[in-house]
């Protein structure tokens, strides 16, 4: 069980922000943090890791207290058994793939552990290559293997797949899912991608302006239970054209564009760039903002 209660005043590109959160992660649960950029998602991961100090709060992992402002406890990052996977991989360019993994171990005698991890993320062939020569997907696999080698108490992933193209992202989602099922380490996954949430998350915390505004299962959060749609896609509004009393909304879903008709009344609160769900209920497609 991981308990996080933290408060910190931040200055973001959108102005000052008071980050204040209080949540728990039961053992073996994978939760995602979802929300607009600047909502404080990365800061939460950094506070758990010990890279940023909360002004007030308590961070407890099992029965270890990592941070407690009341008692003046603040364990340095090196003493918190975390693993952090970053968006830009952060592999050490002077080390080979294998050396990057070795660096994560306390003891050089690994008893074949490194080879096992290399095989698990399909990198055995590339073990003697330097990170500079790898593709984005390969780099992130190295980073995942390196992070998990440490046998962390909590696994923190900060938009790990957002720099990859769609196809690779889907593939790595499967791999992360497989790795998670194998190790069952409590995991916090920051993402903007709904497909990642539906594929990976047990529970989702939706953040806005420094607060957790809603939480629940992905299905409950995004209306799956409330709607018996025959099909449903999430996309972004690219364009809105008014024609008489109707509005034609162009929505990007993945790499496809689709046009959906909405009434003027429905479309009046929508803006270009909004995330929407396009669903078909029986015969007529319906569209609403999320």
């Amino acid at each position, binding site marked *: 069980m991981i308990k996080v209660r933290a408060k910190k005043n931040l200055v973001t590109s959108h102005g000052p922000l008071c980050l204040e959160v209080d949540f728990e992660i039961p053992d073996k649960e994978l939760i995602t943090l979802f929300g607009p950029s600047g909502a404080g998602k990365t800061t939460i991961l950094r506070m758990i890791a010990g*890279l940023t100090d909360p002004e007030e709060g308590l961070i407890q992992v099992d029965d270890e207290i990592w941070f407690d402002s009341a008692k003046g406890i603040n364990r340095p990052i*090196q*003493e918190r058994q*975390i693993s*952090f996977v*970053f968006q830009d991989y952060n592999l050490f360019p*002077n080390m080979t793939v294998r050396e990057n993994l070795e*660096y994560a171990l306390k003891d050089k005698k690994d008893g074949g552990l490194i080879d096992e991890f290399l095989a698990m993320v399909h990198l055995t062939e590339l073990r003697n290559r330097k990170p500079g020569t790898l593709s984005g997907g390969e780099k992130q696999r190295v980073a995942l293997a390196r992070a998990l080698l440490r046998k962390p108490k909590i696994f923190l992933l900060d938009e790990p797949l957002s720099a990859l193209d769609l196809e690779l992202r889907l593939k790595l989602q499967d791999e992360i899912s497989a790795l998670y099922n194998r190790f069952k380490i409590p995991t916090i996954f920051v993402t903007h991608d709904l497909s990642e949430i539906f594929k990976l998350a047990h529970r989702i915390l939706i953040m806005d302006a420094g607060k957790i505004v809603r939480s629940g299962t992905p299905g409950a959060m995004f209306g799956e239970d409330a709607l018996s749609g025959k099909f449903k896609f999430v996309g972004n509004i690219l364009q809105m054209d008014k024609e008489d009393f109707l509005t034609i909304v162009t929505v990007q879903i993945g790499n496809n564009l689709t046009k959906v008709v909405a009434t003027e009344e429905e479309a009046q609160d929508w803006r270009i760039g909004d995330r929407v769900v396009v669903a078909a209920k029986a015969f007529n497609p319906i569209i609403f903002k999320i």
Partner: protein
Amino acid sequence: MNFDLNPLLLTFKLACATTLILVLIGVPLAYWVSFTRRKLKYLIEPLISMPLVLPPTVLGFYILLLFSPRSFLGNFLETVLHVKVVFTFLGLVVGSVLFSLPFMVNPIKAGFQSFPNSLIEASYALGKSRWETLLKVILPNIKPSVLTGIVMAFAHTVGEFGVVLMIGGSIPGETRTASIAIFNEAEALNYAHANFYSSILFLIAFTILFILNVINRKGLKVLS
């Protein structure tokens, strides 16, 4: 014609000793200046760079005063530890270390400051201490900066004149380095001798800068 090789050997010895000491001082100092949040660094940083703008004779003059047997420090060193600094090789090393300090520290500092903080955080996140991160992650990745510092400090020490003359004078075999020998020979109108030393220093300087360029170009390739 018989050339005295001693000044060249002495110069080489001085440059090696100075560079070695500067690596040991320069790396920690550059690390501290780059990463500390203490205000003190705003005082230390300009002090490190002072030799870049200060006339060498000024620096030499104050070192001379500081270590003269009449000063407290010079007196203490000489009577208690029996160490003489002025007009000795040791004095040259002390002066050279201070005078070449910015040439070692500034490139390494630039290397530290341009090194991505995220890689340092990644290393800490893997449970590694600052020391291990410095040795295994930061320094190997800023090798071109460290090498630039080493080469620049070495080259600068080889070409030093003012500080050496102020602190060391011109004692053959002890403090008469190549640059001082050139001055002496030219003053005595021994142009052949002056030319001998000058041409060798010229070649050394060119070779050093040539190597430096090669290192930096390779370094850029590795990082990109």
